[in-house]
């Protein structure tokens, strides 16, 4: 019999980034007992790395902004595959959630009249991102953390959940292990909120930390929930490319928001060469107009560097492939040029982009106030995730909720920068609220001891095999394969090869072995994360094959155009009765007349 400690709560929140913390705070405020489980120490989750800001139509900088414009920008950026009800709720509720952070102690940068300052960002019509220099995520997670620790939430740090437990249809608990001692922990709960973030570790070049192994996606899928939009993986256009050891580390879009421009090796500002038809009217005609926009001129339109991330990433790939890349396989991102325009440009850059300055100075010996940066696309975010109800955030598994990056719907085919931090707090709050309500209405159900026993046995098996494979090597091989075959530019033939590759990697993962014991053993942790990574990789690949068109973050060189037929549904992944992945098409419900009109009016 496996030994485990048992903890009992009404609501179990898995993941303690922005969404998980916000959910836990809300559930706790509703008067139920809440457990918050995090894979790392509290306050270290991926939210900490978000740089640019939090999108909310506060209209502090441009009074023309309102929820309707934000809604319409989000839908356009997502190529209308978004769950429009989520996009509506998000645009309407983000301002209140942002102001709430201020009431809890967040200190955003200020406008001249003392209100929350907002900055320009890709795909947002008006300056909309509340921010703190380029460390907005840190401000947000710390605010939620410092508020949350006084709310009576039970926090379980450095604990990883490996299985959701069900009684019939409903989730009733979760099994995890504490990283420090390697002991199993049973969390009994009446409702569970998944807030585990993304899947970026499935790729070699990634801005994501070791934690991002698709745990929530995989836990939900194996518990019978559906995943949608998994083909849409966001490759952020600007990651560091040099030196090799920092490849993939994020360079905030805020650099472009502050006036940074993209150039190829010939010194040409290539983003002006390809402006999508549906953004033509919103984009500057020339560099001068673009510059005026970044400096707050309301009559100017935004520079093409601030087009959506999917498009900018593809333009960069095009330049590199055409032989116009920088020496280390990127392009140039130049903020130093603004010294032609501004006195004290160097100080201005350091003030507006302190951590970028710091990051390049320390990691690449480059002073961004003097010379351009070399940048290239990096795996950043997954739009796809657990299919949930827009209002309540509950999945098709009763009692199982999801919020933040591991949930899907808000962003459609492409997420706008800044819409992630707002997503976390808008839908984190909703998930917490409705999970608490569910817990109040439903009692505890039976925990199935066999499920625990089987999971415990399976997870300890890598210690039993003497001469199996190194888990790090399998993870490495998966990352390299996904990068090559299911990356920014995709085609069917390569993705079929990827599916075969995933099958082989599954077999290798079943034969993994680890040295040492269960106490804080990263080799073992890596071995256990493999099945999550493989599950999400398979879901991404299958969905990407099924979507035979190019839209948003998905670019198919064998189907390079958008296909009207594919605008009518999301692609869903579920588990069939034989335990295999099954794919289906979920029709997008017809948008309400009111919202349709908003989209039309906004042009």
């Amino acid at each position, binding site marked *: 019999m496996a030994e485990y400690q048992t903890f009992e709560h009404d609501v179990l929140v898995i993941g303690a980034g922005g969404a998980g913390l916000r959910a836990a705070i809300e559930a706790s405020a509703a008067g139920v007992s809440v457990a918050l489980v995090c894979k790392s120490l509290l306050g270290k989750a991926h939210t900490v790395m978000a740089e640019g800001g939090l999108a909310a139509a506060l209209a502090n900088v441009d009074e023309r902004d309102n929820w309707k414009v934000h809604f319409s920008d989000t839908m356009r950026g997502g190529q209308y595959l978004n769950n429009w009800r989520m996009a509506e709720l998000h645009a309407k509720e983000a301002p209140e959630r942002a102001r709430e952070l201020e009431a809890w102690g967040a200190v955003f940068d200020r406008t001249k009249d003392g209100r929350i300052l907002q900055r320009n960002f890709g795909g947002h019509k008006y300056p909309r991102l509340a921010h703190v220099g380029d460390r907005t995520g840190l401000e947000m997670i710390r605010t939620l953390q410092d508020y949350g620790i006084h709310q009576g939430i039970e926090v379980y740090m450095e604990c990883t959940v490996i299985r959701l437990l069900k009684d019939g249809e409903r989730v009733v608990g979760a099994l995890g292990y504490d990283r420090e001692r390697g002991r199993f922990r049973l969390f009994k709960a009446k409702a569970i909120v998944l807030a585990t973030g993304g899947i970026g570790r499935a790729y070699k070049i990634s801005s994501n930390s070791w934690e991002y192994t698709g745990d929530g996606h995989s836990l939900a899928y194996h518990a019978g929930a559906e995943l949608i939009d998994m083909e849409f993986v966001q490759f952020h256009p600007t990651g560091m490319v040099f030196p090799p050891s920092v490849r993939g580390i*994020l360079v905030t879009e805020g650099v472009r928001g502050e006036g940074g421009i993209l150039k190829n090796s010939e010194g040409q500002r290539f983003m002006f060469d390809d402006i999508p038809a549906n953004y033509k009217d919103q984009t500057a005609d020339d560099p001068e107009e673009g510059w005026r926009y970044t400096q707050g001129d309301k009559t100017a339109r935004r520079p093409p560097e601030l087009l959506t991330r999917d498009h900018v990433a593809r333009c960069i790939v095009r330049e590199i492939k055409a032989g116009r890349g920088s020496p280390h396989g990127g392009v140039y991102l130049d903020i130093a040029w603004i010294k032609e325009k501004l006195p004290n440009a160097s100080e201005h850059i350091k003030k507006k982009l302190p951590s970028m300055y710091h990051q390049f100075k320390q*990691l690449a010996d480059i002073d961004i106030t003097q010379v351009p940066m070399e940048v290239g696309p990096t795996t950043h975010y997954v739009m796809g995730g657990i299919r949930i109800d827009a209002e309540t955030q509950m999945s098709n598994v009763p009692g199982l909720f999801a919020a933040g990056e591991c949930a899907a719907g808000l962003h459609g085919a492409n997420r706008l920068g800044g819409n992630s931090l707002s997503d976390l707090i808008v839908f984190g709050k909703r998930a917490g609220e409705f999970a608490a309500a569910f817990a109040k209405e439903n009692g505890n159900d039976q925990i199935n001891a066999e499920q625990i026993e089987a999971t415990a046995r399976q997870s300890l098996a890598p210690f039993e095999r003497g001469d199996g494979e190194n888990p790090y090597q399998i993870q490495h091989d998966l990352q390299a394969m996904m990068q090559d075959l299911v990356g920014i530019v995709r085609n069917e033939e390569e993705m079929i090869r990827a599916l075969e590759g995933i099958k082989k990697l599954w077999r290798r993962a079943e034969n993994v072995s680890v040295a040492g014991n269960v106490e804080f053993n*990263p080799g073992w942790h890596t071995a256990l994360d493999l099945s999550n990574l493989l599950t999400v990789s398979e879901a991404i690949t299958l969905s990407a094959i099924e979507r035979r068109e190019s839209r948003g973050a998905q670019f198919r060189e064998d189907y390079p155009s958008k296909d009207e037929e594919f605008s009518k549904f999301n692609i869903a992944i579920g588990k069939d009765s034989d335990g295999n992945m099954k794919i289906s098409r979920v029709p997008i419900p017809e948008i309400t007349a009111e919202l349709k009109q908003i989209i039309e009016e906004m042009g």
Partner: protein
Amino acid sequence: MKTATFKIWRGDSQGGDFVDYTTEISEGMVVLDAVLQIQAEQAGDLACRWNCKAGKCGSCSAEINGMPKLMCMTRLNTLPLEEPVTVEPMKAFPPIKDLITDVSWNYEIKKRIKKFKPRPPDAPDGTWRMMQEDIDRVQEFRKCIECFLCQDVCHVLRDHHLHEKFIGPRFLVYAAALEMHPLDTENRVVELREDYNIGYCNITKCCTTVCPENITITDNAIIPLKERVVDEFYDPIKKFLRLFRSRPSAKK
């Protein structure tokens, strides 16, 4: 291919020793890259914490050649590689395994500090007005990534082990950020003197030296707080006035 040798402390709460690992190095590598490479190729169970690999999360704190640093921001070309590079856990906290220490004490301390308590909103829509120049200082403190390197290097904690009495530079910065927050109405001065024992800090500025976020911990946070304590408790006029009013909160 160029190689370098790393002497990494392996052990647990019962004790341990340095183990030598030689690994290939390439341009731009930081200490964390080397440690993760050793973990992947030679020592799968080598325990270390990390997340962002960009100096933003404060997870990978360690002592590198005896200096408290973030492994992710310490480039190998800043170290003499003819000699083995020593990597060991922070000393001010109990070891758990290899490079991992038990930092839970820090989380307990934070809970003891009175939380943010804003004044009523300034505007009818429930918002406040704050001028940028009034928040610059607080924003400096809020850059803290909670790597706890300042705690590690503070001699009150590291050498004298006064964790029971002294909250350390990290939480003096935290208290300063709350005390200097333009909206905050709480008073933490009594606790600073009596519970957090700010007087233990004798301003050697070691914490400021190691801060990876370049927060001027001593000059901007601790000294102004000390001044507040002095104003409150040692100002002769206030001392006199205090004879005539009771301060129940001062005696807990």
